[in-house]
């Protein structure tokens, strides 16, 4: 930020603050090149981004707030201003939609609790194991490659792997487990599939952080007689704090948005036991045509996500 100080407003950031080309040019050109150009040009670079930002982030956001304060349907449009009643219905859990909102919110929070710890522990443990072993590139590829599968691709693969009749896991191990239609197995199945498919990114981040820990620090600990696990817990782990917070925040947000694999593997079932908040929002919007209520629910979810991310980042700063 210090590079910005002492520079003429509108000019390029550099030490001398020299005006750009145009010295000695005819009067009219000088007005453009000396005075207007430095003021206008920085904005020109921003025009493409600001245009798409306004069109595809800002307008939808403001429009969404407007919609959430109205009775609104995708088919018939604006049905009149209703104030905060869409939010009230949800927060107080009124009616079918209100109770569905809370049930799916708790379902989602449950999934976050059973997925995020594993999505941190497994990549971290594997990152340390790969760091201590030969053939690092091979392992890295092995743990990252499922990231190339889309949610529907790995969702349908796991749905068939875990099918009760004829599913590969059941036939291979001679089991008869209702992986997808029984509780609590449905959650376990979704958890396993999600961890398998999405831990690659977290692994890469944790691995990068592990390799940045100075070798001398670890060797010093080894000299002092610390075993591999003690070195990991006492030396490595505190230095992985920053990367860990990034991984936890990213995975918390991703798990709160559980949708595609759930839709394909369990379709929210058995019953509505694995119906997530995003599925409820989707159903309200596109099956019940309640755009106002669905938008309100999406904003409430966004607020919950913001608050959680804020606290996770705060906890990380306090320790640093």
């Amino acid at each position, binding site marked *: 930020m210090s590079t910005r100080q002492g520079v003429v407003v509108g000019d390029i950031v550099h030490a001398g603050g020299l005006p*750009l080309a145009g010295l000695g040019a005819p009067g009219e050109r000088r007005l453009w090149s000396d005075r207007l150009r430095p003021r206008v040009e920085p904005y020109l670079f921003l025009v493409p981004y600001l245009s798409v930002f306004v069109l595809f982030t800002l307008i939808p956001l403001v429009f969404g707030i407007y919609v959430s304060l109205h009775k609104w349907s995708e088919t018939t449009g604006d049905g009149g201003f209703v104030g905060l009643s869409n939010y009230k219905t949800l927060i107080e859990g009124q009616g079918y939609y209100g109770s569905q909102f809370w049930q799916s919110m708790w379902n989602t929070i449950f999934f976050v609790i059973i997925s995020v710890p594993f999505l941190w522990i497994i990549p971290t443990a594997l990152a340390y194991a790969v760091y201590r072993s030969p053939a690092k590139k091979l392992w890295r590829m092995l743990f990252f*490659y499922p990231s190339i599968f889309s949610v529907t691709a790995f969702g349908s693969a796991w749905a068939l792997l875990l099918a009760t009749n004829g599913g590969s896991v059941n036939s291979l191990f001679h089991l008869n487990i209702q992986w997808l239609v029984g509780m609590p197995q449905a959650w376990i199945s979704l958890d396993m599939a999600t961890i398998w498919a999405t831990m690659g990114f977290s692994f890469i981040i944790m691995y990068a952080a592990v390799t940045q820990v100075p070798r001398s620090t670890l060797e010093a600990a080894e000299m002092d007689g610390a075993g591999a696990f003690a070195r990991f817990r006492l030396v490595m782990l505190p230095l992985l704090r920053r*990367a860990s917070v990034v991984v936890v925040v990213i995975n918390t947000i991703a798990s709160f948005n559980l949708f595609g694999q759930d839709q394909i593997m369990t379709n929210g079932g058995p019953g509505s036991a694995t119906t997530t908040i995003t599925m409820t929002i*989707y159903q309200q919007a596109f099956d019940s045509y309640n755009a106002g209520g669905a938008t309100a629910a*999406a904003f409430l979810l966004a607020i919950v996500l913001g608050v959680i991310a804020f606290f996770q980042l705060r906890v990380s700063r306090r320790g640093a």
Partner: protein
Amino acid sequence: MANAQISLSSPSAALVASSRRRMRRRLIRKLPNLVVLAIAGVIMLFPLLWVLSTALGKGTGGLASGSLLPDGVTLANFRTIFNVSASQDPVLRWLLNSVGVSLVAAVLVALIDSLAAFSLARLSFRGSKVIFYIVVSSLMVPFIALLLPLFLWFQYLGLLNTYGALVLPYTANAFGVFLLYQFFLAIPTELQDAAVADGATRFQIWWKIFVPLSIGITVTLGLLTFMGVYNDFFWPLVATSSPTMRTITVGIEIVAIGQYQTNYTALMALTVVSVIPMLVAFIFAQRRLVEGIAFAGIQG
């Protein structure tokens, strides 16, 4: 090893033996580590092997036979997905839609974000801080909050079921601006000063200095965008309804819960086909991708 054998008869034989013992002890100590990795590796590979054997296998493939290995290899399932009633499930069209949309979005994001990041990081002008904070805070808006309003907005604009709908919402990528902003801040000011002294315009400075210096991270941003758009499910699901405008990710869901509900082997062939463009991108740019994710993760 050869050296060790020669020196066995030499006076340092005892030393060599002890170093060998130490090596063996080291290996034993590392064994649990390798066992953990091997088990994890098998678990990671299992679904892939199974998908491949089901897609390429004869008959029901690996699915009901209770074994991972198919009876024989055939491409029949791939023929099925590309042939069956092209009007109903145009798989090739879905693939081309996905690749085209993701490529265009990736190029647009790289270009738009590079221009914006250059202006915010290296040019000084009134309001630059405010704009930067708006960009950064828009990172906090989760996509789910924008999904429905975007749908209604595109409905209002009459752009649902168009390529515009499939590309445009991804172009407002604040993450990319932030990533390139961080990178541009680290480029020495001397380079810029020298160019200014030579009479270069701002556009020339961006194009001739900042773009070449940041080409690695910019390509990585493009790749991450490509991956994200190609694999996105929620937005193309709501933004399109006509069969010809679907992307492959949505197409798989349609097939999975639709007409092939019993034709598992064809569904797995479709899954394999859907991964191929991503696999190509992955093979060509694995190192860059890995470095990019690591950089982005560590930048926080």
